[in-house]
């Protein structure tokens, strides 16, 4: 057996007195789609930031192909082949698609001038590689949210081809756009890219992931199959069996009513969630 593409062992990260990660082990194989679940504050984002070089771990090591690496900033992570699509859409809306794809690594002509035609040509090639007909000269502000998401993926892939970390990529997408995105993700995985897929939406997990890691309180609560029963996932997420959960509060019901089609863990602060757990999770059981 060869070493996993990417692995983290014993990662600890503190912010002041708060321990965000309390010894986390995580690994990703080439061509795998690995879902990472957890409530807000469970440590998902911190882990993701370690992998993308935004933070460095206080303890523990990161390995790529079995070799320990130090990722001191996003550039080093990108150089190591790890690309991240952050939660927000990290594109500049007032620049065009090509400018965004090449931001920070512009193609230049002699004399210190931007080579705009070359960047547009190359951008077109990269977009067409995933069969996306977006004019590279269009402003990102003029694209749909789904198109922007795809541009962000193409941008991330242009930094790095080995590991792609996606933080809630479907949060703002329509159903059709989600399907389209999943197709792209599957094809990328098939081509050997390891994908870390972070989501709040439990329902998506069996559809896309090959493996699920659930985090809670800065630790890995468990690693399971994506087709594990929802009740098992919820138990791992909140740390208690479902029947111990409180009845829903009025506000949560209202939120649930507002979005009946989308079942997901709400992005509410952890304390409040413990005081009034979410009805949607309970209902699914």
């Amino acid at each position, binding site marked *: 057996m060869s070493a996993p593409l990417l692995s983290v062992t014993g990662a600890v990260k503190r912010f002041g007195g708060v321990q965000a990660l309390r010894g986390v082990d995580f690994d990703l194989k080439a061509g795998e789609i690995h879902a990472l679940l957890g409530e807000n504050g469970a440590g998902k984002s911190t882990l993701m930031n370690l992998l993308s070089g935004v933070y460095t771990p206080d303890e523990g090591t990161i390995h790529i192909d079995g070799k320990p690496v130090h990722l001191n900033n996003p550039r080093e992570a990108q150089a190591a082949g790890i690309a991240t699509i952050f939660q927000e859409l990290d594109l500049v809306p007032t620049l065009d698609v090509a400018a965004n794809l090449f931001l920070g690594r512009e193609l230049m002509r002699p004399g210190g001038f931007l080579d705009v035609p070359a960047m547009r040509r190359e951008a077109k090639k990269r977009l067409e590689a995933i069969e996306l007909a977006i004019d590279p000269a269009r402003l990102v502000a003029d694209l749909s949210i789904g198109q922007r998401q795809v541009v962000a993926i193409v941008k991330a892939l242009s930094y790095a081809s080995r590991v792609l970390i996606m933080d809630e990529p479907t949060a703002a997408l329509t159903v059709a756009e989600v399907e389209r995105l999943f*197709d792209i993700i599957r094809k990328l995985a098939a081509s050997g890219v390891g994908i870390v897929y972070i989501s709040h939406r439990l329902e998506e997990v069996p559809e896309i992931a090959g493996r699920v890691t659930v985090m809670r309180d800065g630790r890995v609560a468990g690693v399971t199959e994506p087709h594990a029963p929802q009740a098992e996932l919820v138990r791992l997420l909140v740390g208690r069996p479902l029947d111990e959960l409180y009845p829903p509060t009025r506000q949560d019901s209202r939120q649930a009513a507002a979005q009946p089609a989308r079942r997901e863990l709400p992005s509410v602060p952890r304390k409040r969630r413990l005081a009034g757990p979410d009805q949607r999770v309970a209902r699914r059981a």
Partner: protein
Amino acid sequence: MSEEKVSVAGAPAVPAAAPKHRDPLALIVRFQSLIGLVLVAIGGIIFSPRRHGEILFLNPDNIANIVRAVSETGIIAIGMTFVIITAGIDLSVGAVLGLSSVVTASMMISGGFGLVPTILAVLIMGIVFGAIQGTISTRFRLEPFIVTLAGLQAARGLALVVSGNQYINISYGDGPGLAPPVFAVLGERLFNNTVPVATLVFIVFAAIATIVLNTTRFGRYVFAVGGNERAARISGVPVSMVKISVYAITGFAAALAGIVHAGQFNFGSANDGMGYELTAIAAVVIGGTSLFGGAGSMVGTVAGTIMLGALANILQLNNITPAMQLLATAAIIVLAAVLQSLVRRREGLGR
């Protein structure tokens, strides 16, 4: 990026891939100052007083008046465009103009420095002044509004110190207490007494700034920092350096305008350039540059600057009170800002 083509078999057409043309309103905003300039010019021609059938507004001397009068605020507005595209603001520019004109005058008159050392020293002073403001703002995460407001006070204070609370008249000639006569060229007109030298400085500076903004990596970073600072940082754009640089540019522009001021008026006073920062900001906003950052154009700023000058000119030629001039400028600024915000909302940026 993976070398293999990752194809998505039978994928449906991308939802919003249908060609979506730019909003007509967005186009208007993009070219609003050019449109405004054309409208003012047409209005100028229609309402211009005539003599022997000659339209005074179009008289070459009159056009020279217009572009001369706006050259100093224009130079400042060019620098301000960089800052505003990064979603910043620089209130210190008028005061730095005053400081620079005083330093220019006193270096040549009381200091006995030659032309080249004086100009170099003043330009470097402007760059350093701006860079310090930019550094303070990025380092301590302070609003540029506050930092440059303090910079305004500091520059006026320094100007009073340097000038000893006096005007400094610049007289020309050889010897101590006299400035090199060639400096007076800034107040003259070239090419058969038609093109004001101050305007030439403005045009050359505007041309260089347009090239820097639109065709260099730095210019691209300026847009990126203003459009989405986080995205820029993640993409490896040196955000702090870009921000410090744009304030250095406004400092340079204000110093250049101060030198032009001293040369045009043979004079340095700590009160020079009072309120120019606001005229410059108005010209930039009318020029279609967004105060939210990320979008803007140098051509728009130049057109906005000249439009304000042409408007003032045609109103005076028709003997319309300065009150009307202020009201008209106010209306234009509001119109420009409203158009911008409408477009932002349509583009879903107005959060």
